[in-house]
């Protein structure tokens, strides 16, 4: 089961268990995001939930005692006290309370003592404390998890809660591994392991259907879980600092482009800045869970998406001409019958045409093809001097935006940090000459601090592909299968890590276990959960999706694939968001080197 499926079944459980009748759903800011990412409001309304309210802004509103209230909140102290206040002066007739994670007995007691009118019917704890974007990718929406190279306050706790809730919702009791050179990763891994040890009985009892299956057995099965009922699995905590390259590159798959160039926030894309935009398109929903077309095309590249949109348009126009021919009564009936689907389709078409149009406008305005080509040559090529020359050219080119130029310099600085003829200084002064915002110039050294040679343990640039990049230019975006596209040569590091993990070949020295390593450390885990502190990207999501698709099923059957890989991050990054989080991360640290 994927992340989306788990959250959905939790929502359905909540609504189903609260008996028929009209209902209101009381959520907090985060749980609202959790629900809205996997289900459209109309979908929830079909199940008799007609109204929604946020705990943080509970109106003193009128008494609606005939309504049943489904409460779905995180078990934070603030939410508990808000709920207590609500129960002391209840506005609804019955309360069904669901906490999105493990809730303490003290909190339950506090609530129970406030419920003087005996209105609470259920108090349940479910494990839906993460935002599921697709079955294989989730986020915790923490934009700046690190300040001064330490966990920002509350973020370690939140990350632990998010990850353990994911693990529990998938009925897993995983081993925990972490990136050896990262203190942050070790801390988080420690916390996760502790939580699993404390609360893992939930999974053990539910998966065997026997509550007496106690914790002693769980502890036994923890280390040889391949024998037990719970499939073997592993959580691997990674640090973004090991791969600062991926979030700096321009992306060419549909989903990643939308996020990189327009920005997706809680499944919504704001198009308000697009010139001449229609009112209803100022903000559009872009989640694969609610848009079939998007689900089908999110991993297509820029060239393919153009084709697909064209097909969609043609299909639509075909229907349109049929629709417009309303002459007889029969035509009219037909029109009315098909109108809802038609309208839905027209919404989809106009949305995607607008989005793709805007993408292509930005691509040509910022000359992103050139920029991206240079980026790919930087990270996948090996020669220093042509790289330097090309970067110089583009940095001086006034047609390239200041931000893109700065990002190129950052990529160069990281790529050729140890090269004998490194000329980052020259590039930075070229940036200054362009009078690029001082922020970006500071960011070049910040980036070296954050993700330079000293911060990395993996060999990020070890696979030189001595291929003449320009030879492939002609095959640009033709979508020829099996041929590397010049703009998408880069493969994110996490893909390599995931592949190794699936094969059970991840080195223990680089990714040690928390606690003692299990005896079957080399065994292939059935579920691999990768979590990147500092955020994941859609490029990585697409790569993991691809990996999942190619993972062969053991017996040729389709029901049980040999393994699945889930990817998560504190946030989903695009370049601007990454730069901001890097700024926050290095804030207040003493720069060890890299005065520029």
């Amino acid at each position, binding site marked *: 089961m994927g992340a989306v499926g788990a959250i959905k079944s939790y929502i359905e459980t909540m609504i189903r268990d609260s008996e028929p009748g009209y209902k209101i759903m009381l959520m907090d800011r985060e749980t609202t995001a959790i629900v809205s990412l996997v289900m459209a409001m*109309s979908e929830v309304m079909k199940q008799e939930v007609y109204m929604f309210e946020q705990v943080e802004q509970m109106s003193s509103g009128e008494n609606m005692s005939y309504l049943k209230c489904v409460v779905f909140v995180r078990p934070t102290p603030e939410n508990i006290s808000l709920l207590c206040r609500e129960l002391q002066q209840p506005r609804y*007739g019955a309360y069904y309370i669901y906490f999105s994670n493990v809730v303490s007995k003290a909190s339950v007691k506090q609530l*129970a003592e406030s419920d003087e009118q005996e209105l609470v019917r259920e108090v349940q*704890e479910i494990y839906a404390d993460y935002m599921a974007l697709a079955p294989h990718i989730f986020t915790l929406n923490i934009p700046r998890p690190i300040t001064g190279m330490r966990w920002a306050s509350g973020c370690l706790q939140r990350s632990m809660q998010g990850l353990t809730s994911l693990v529990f919702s998938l009925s897993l009791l995983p081993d925990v591994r972490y990136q050896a050179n990262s203190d942050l990763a070790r801390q988080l891994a420690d916390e996760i392991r502790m939580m699993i040890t404390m609360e893992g009985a939930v*999974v053990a009892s539910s998966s065997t259907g026997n509550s007496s299956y106690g914790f002693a057995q769980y502890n036994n099965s923890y280390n040889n879980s391949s024998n037990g009922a719970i499939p073997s699995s592993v959580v691997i905590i990674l640090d973004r600092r090991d791969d600062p390259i991926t979030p700096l590159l321009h992306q060419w798959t549909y989903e990643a482009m939308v996020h990189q160039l327009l920005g997706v926030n809680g499944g919504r894309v704001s198009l308000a800045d697009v010139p001449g935009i229609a009112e209803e398109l100022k903000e559009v929903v872009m989640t694969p869970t609610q848009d079939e077309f998007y689900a089908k095309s999110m991993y297509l590249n820029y060239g393919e998406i153009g084709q697909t949109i064209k097909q969609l348009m043609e299909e639509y126009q075909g229907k349109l001409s049929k629709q417009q021919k309303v002459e007889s009564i029969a035509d009219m009936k037909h029109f009315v019958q098909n109108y809802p689907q038609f309208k839905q389709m027209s919404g989809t078409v106009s949305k995607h045409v607008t989005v793709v149009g805007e993408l292509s406008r930005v691509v040509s305005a910022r000359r992103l093809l050139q920029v991206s080509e240079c980026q790919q040559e930087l990270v996948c090529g090996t020669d220093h001097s042509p790289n330097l020359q090309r970067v110089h050219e583009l940095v001086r080119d006034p047609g390239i935006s200041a931000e893109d130029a700065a990002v190129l310099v950052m990529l160069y600085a990281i790529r050729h940090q140890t090269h004998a003829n490194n000329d980052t200084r020259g590039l930075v002064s070229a940036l200054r000459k362009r009078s690029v915002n001082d922020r970006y110039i500071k960011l070049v050294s910040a980036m070296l601090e954050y993700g330079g040679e000293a911060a990395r343990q993996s060999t990020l640039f070890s696979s030189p592909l001595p291929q003449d990049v320009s030879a492939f230019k002609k095959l640009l975006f033709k979508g020829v299968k099996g041929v590397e596209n010049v703009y998408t040569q880069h493969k994110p590091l996490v893909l390599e890590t995931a592949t190794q993990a699936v094969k059970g070949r991840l080195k223990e020295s680089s990714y040690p276990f928390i606690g003692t390593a299990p005896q079957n450390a080399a065994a292939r885990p059935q579920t691999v959960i990768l979590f990147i502190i500092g955020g994941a990207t859609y490029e990585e999501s697409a790569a993991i999706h691809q990996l999942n698709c*190619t993972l062969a099923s053991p017996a040729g059957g389709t029901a049980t694939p040999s393994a*699945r890989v889930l990817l998560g991050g504190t946030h989903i990054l695009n370049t601007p968001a990454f730069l901001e989080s890097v700024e926050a991360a290095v804030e207040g640290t003493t720069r060890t080197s890299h005065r520029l």
Partner: protein
Amino acid sequence: MAAATDFQLNKTEEIMEGFLCPVCLQDLTSIAQLQVHFEEKHSAEDKALLNSLKSIFSKARKLLNDSDTEDDAPCASKLPESKAGGAKIYSNIFSQNSVPPCLPNCNDPWNWQNTATVPQRSHTSLFKTIRSDRIDTYVAETNKLLLRLDKLLADAPSDPVKRKAQERELVPWVDDACVPLCPDCGRSFSALTRRRHHCRLCGAIMCNKCSIFMSMAFAKQLVAPVHVATLMSGSSAQGKSSPGHSRGNSGSRHVLDGSAGFSLRRSGSQGSLNSIASMMDQLTGEQHLRVCQHCHQRVCARDRAVQQRQHQPLLALLYRKLMTDRATLYRLLPQYRTMAASLWSGESVYNLSDACELRLKVLRLGDSINATAQKIKTLGPVEVQQSQLNDPENQPPLGPRQELLQKRIYQSAAAFLKTNVLGLDKLPDAEELQQLQTKRREQAARRLAEERKAAELAELRAEQALIKLRQRDAEVITTRNARDRSLNSSGSSAHERRALVHRPSPGASVGEEGWGGDADAHVVTATDDPVVQQMNIIRNYIKQAREACRYEEVSTLEKNLKELQVEYRRLNGTT
């Protein structure tokens, strides 16, 4: 018997057996026919597939031949084994070649299967234990207050001085000296400007500003519903009656004596009322009972709970109707859809009249839903008026949120109608139906003829192919030919068997569904003739089936009945 290939396209799909063409799934009777069919129909489609298939055919054939030559005589008992060998290879090649195209990404995360349950942990019992401990004391407290209130109202002497004594006797008043400051606002008391006052319910002390004056009407109402509520929990027959109603009806009950007595006194003398009220609002002349904030909160909460239990808003009633209609409609729809589809394709499983009736039922339900939803949408003012009749003070006016709720209910009902009823398939009229049915019959006949012809043709080609083979390997052919023939015959017999199974067997279906065994199904007029009895039983069944909306069975049963009637007439004619 003819089973040779295990073709598993998908878990959910039924398993087909026989010599199936991997591309179009046509059932062919022999390997040779399959090969011919494939070369003929699909040669252009996929060279690679064809090649691999060819190699498989030759392998399979070799296997078959091997097993045949092993035991020189074509022995029937050996056949299944050899076929099973062939089957293995077939399933291999199919899983390689035709499954992947159907499911290009078998491990696509979107296809990950959901497990049935997600873990969750209930804290409800812990919550309820903690709550009930607290609630017990809370309820006891509240009950004490209400009992005191009841006594205060019931046995009050008319004289103000005596009244005060009675009040102090019922509720022990806190000593003035113990309380130097008002416990609520924290200001000090003085003899003139801020005097001490006692709560008439708990005896606590507070200042004038911090006391709450409970109106007599409200106090009365508080006491009365307590009894009504306890009464109601005793006799649920009274459940729906409003408080005023039950008060009027059951004046004889001793529990209500208090309120009855109270209203008597009230009409008796205004002066005594003044004394009942420890404090009187000078401006309005209304009577009040001085209570502290805590007591007030408690009794109010109690009042609200009682109100809630009794008050059934119109909205709830309408909504319940809406949802039951919706559920019924939902149940009927798939039935109607299959009927309509069946009728349009010219089948005669269902009666047209039954379908029409069902359609009407669905539409009527749709209308009813629409009307209810409309009513809910415009309910607002009605709701307020209605509740104002019940109690004028405690009902808040229609707020924006209720309006929103009503609007949303209407919207979702409208959306439901739009997707389910508006696009309801039309039914053919009688004439059209006739045409459809004859067309279908013709088509079926044509298809049958075509199939026969194709089979003959394929047979011919298979013969030719075999002749070619024979030239290559004359010895093996003799055994193969014999086998082929036996295969054909067994294949066709299997076909017949399937057809037999397909024919509906009404008796069995009635038995399976279980509703046929009801007692009244066998209420038949006393007659000795078994055929007449049988007919009557069937008539009963038809009636029941109609009632249960099982139109498919109605028509099969009717057919049965007709047959019986013919039989009966024939019998009667001969005798």
